[in-house]
């Protein structure tokens, strides 16, 4: 078995606001192994981005606060490191790629300057070496005429190319862990396919671990080894990717799968949406946060918030009634598959 790279234990993040304390992350625990790809799936406000920003120590404090938790990365608790020590890790051992390629690059610096910055800082390269390495990195993410483009500014690149530049910056110091926060959400599907293709290739070549944050179950199905489904700051279900899609055991996961139209289905009369809205993170209920929207709810769910319970091999679900979910979900997920474009014809 491979070794543990990142061990997150009971992580909580809160923000003090005018309306009260927003409980963004509420006791998240998971383990990431070396070279593993983990998908973090959830809707806006589910805490998927905030939990990773907390791992990276990028939460502004105040208003942010981390009342409990440990983030053990290669034996050290990142939450206990000094700002200087953290700087040695950020960008070097753990790198992050953000959602919006339009705003995450500095518009007044050339692409070359922005890539070489990390190389000179973390790898101790001189200017010439760094430039050479920067050109290699751009080639690695399929940017043509890499050497010439180093002197261009971000506005001279398209959205997809900027995101590739961001990935090149993320990979510049050969990190052990790359955190990608919805890196393809702002992009068109054909460009998204380019990016996921590059990331899959680079992962094979470089062997780093990836945490891929997304709201798109389709994107993550083809990428991740394991998936954490998040809701209201909790991990509500976690399982290996194939197991999760074949055997979802939390009502929210079932709801998500039932509410997305699939390309490989015929025109269906109706989707099965999740009715209602997620709960207010200031006034979280005592019981299960999904109670209001859940079709499997019982009295117990109102009184006690379910912990993650083992429901199968490497499969945990935070639902008291997961057996009911197992029996009834097929009615919700009923689908008829048609041949898919892009599938090799036999």
């Amino acid at each position, binding site marked *: 078995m491979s070794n543990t790279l990142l061990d997150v234990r009971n992580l909580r993040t809160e923000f003090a606001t005018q309306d009260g304390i927003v409980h963004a992350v509420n006791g998240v625990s998971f383990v990431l192994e070396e070279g593993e790809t983990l998908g973090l799936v959830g*809707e806006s406000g589910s805490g998927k981005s905030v939990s990773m920003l907390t791992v990276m120590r990028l939460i502004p404090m105040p208003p942010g606060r981390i009342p409990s938790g440990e983030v053990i990365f290669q034996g050290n608790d990142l939450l206990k490191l000094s700002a200087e020590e953290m700087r040695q890790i950020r960008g070097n051992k753990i790198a992050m790629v953000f959602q919006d390629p339009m705003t995450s690059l500095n518009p007044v610096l050339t692409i070359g300057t922005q890539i070489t910055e990390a190389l000179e800082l973390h790898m101790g390269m001189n200017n010439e070496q760094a430039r050479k390495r920067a050109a290699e990195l751009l080639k690695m993410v399929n940017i043509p005429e890499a050497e010439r483009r180093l002197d261009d500014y971000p506005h001279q690149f398209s959205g997809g190319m900027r995101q590739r530049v961001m990935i090149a910056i993320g990979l510049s110091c050969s990190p052990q862990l790359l955190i990608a926060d919805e890196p393809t959400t702002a992009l068109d599907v054909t460009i*998204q*396919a380019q990016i996921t293709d590059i990331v899959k290739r680079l992962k094979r070549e470089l062997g780093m671990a990836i945490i891929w944050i997304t709201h798109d179950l*389709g994107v993550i199905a083809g990428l991740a080894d394991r998936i954490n489904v998040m809701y209201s700051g909790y991990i509500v279900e976690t399982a290996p990717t194939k197991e999760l899609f074949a055997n979802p055991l939390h009502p929210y996961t079932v709801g*998500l799968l039932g509410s997305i139209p699939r390309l490989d289905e015929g025109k269906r009369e109706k989707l099965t949406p999740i009715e209602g809205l997620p709960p207010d993170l200031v006034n979280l209920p005592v019981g299960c946060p999904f109670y209001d929207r859940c079709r499997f709810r019982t009295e117990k769910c109102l009184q006690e918030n379910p912990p993650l319970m083992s429901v199968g091999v490497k499969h945990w679900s935070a639902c008291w009634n997961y057996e009911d979910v197992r029996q009834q979900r097929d009615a919700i997920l009923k689908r008829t598959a*048609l041949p898919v474009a892009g599938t090799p014809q036999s």
Partner: protein
Amino acid sequence: MQAQPQTKLPPPAASANDTKPILQVKDLKKYFPITQGILFQKKVADVKAVDGITFDVLPGETLGLVGESGCGKSTTGRTILQLYRPTEGSVIFENKDLAQLKGEDLRKMRSNMQMIFQDPYASLNPRMTVGDIIAEPLEVHNIAKGKEKKERVQELLQIVNLNPYFINRYPHEFSGGQRQRIGIARALAVNPDFIVCDEPISALDVSIQAQIINLLGELQERFGLTYLFIAHDLSVVRHISDRVAVMYLGKIVELTDSKALYANPLHPYTRALLSAVPIPDPVIEEKRERIILVGDVPSPVNPPKGCRFHTRCPLAIPICKEVAPEWREVGNGHFVECHVV
């Protein structure tokens, strides 16, 4: 039970070939000028956002219009509704060419065609109450006044599954999905036949998207609406549309019924687009082979000569660089614009 507002006939079968189209778009072009100079502005070039497209929309059907950002799909929707005046071409709606209509005549036509916008945060005036927002089209078109108006607004709120007591609230008090329902109620206020839905769900969370998709489907059945459904998400378009048109750089490259488009895509761009859409199933994803397009979409200011797709096309042959392919029917209402297929 609530009363049906000015009951309409049930939608006629959309597939019948002899059905008269509700909307005919012929060789529609929309160019936006690029100007230079301060006092004497001189036109130096055009952004050819929509560059000669032809299609019909049949009554009661949903025509999906898909393409990537910048392909001209939203401009098409807006030009059809005359929110942008077309540079060339005609838009025939209920036997009148909208491109020729002006002023009062055009304004009257607008009560038959409405739009649902993409961004529910930007398309509702934050200083108006929900009641005023939905009532505005009723006032503009002199449909209802006073008590009758209020009742109609409450009825509309119920139709989109919102509580009629929300009438005095402001948009900021609602979530994204609820706001989109308000936008839909506003579009329905004048009892239109035809609605352009411009990416109505792309700003919403996944679980909320399904609510809106279902609502649009129910309303179509109930009021016999015809939709032009603009979106970049092919899975959604497939789910909701009877026929689908695929746009690339200002042109429609393929148009057919949605089953045929997915089962038998002909244009190389359509094939690449379909293969790029991820499917939420790891077993299928493992086996799929993607057609990865190289490069980016060229600029619509200087679209490539010949076929616009030839710079990225895996099937391109010499003629594609020189001669623009014709828009032709390859059988059974399946249109395509390509030399190779």
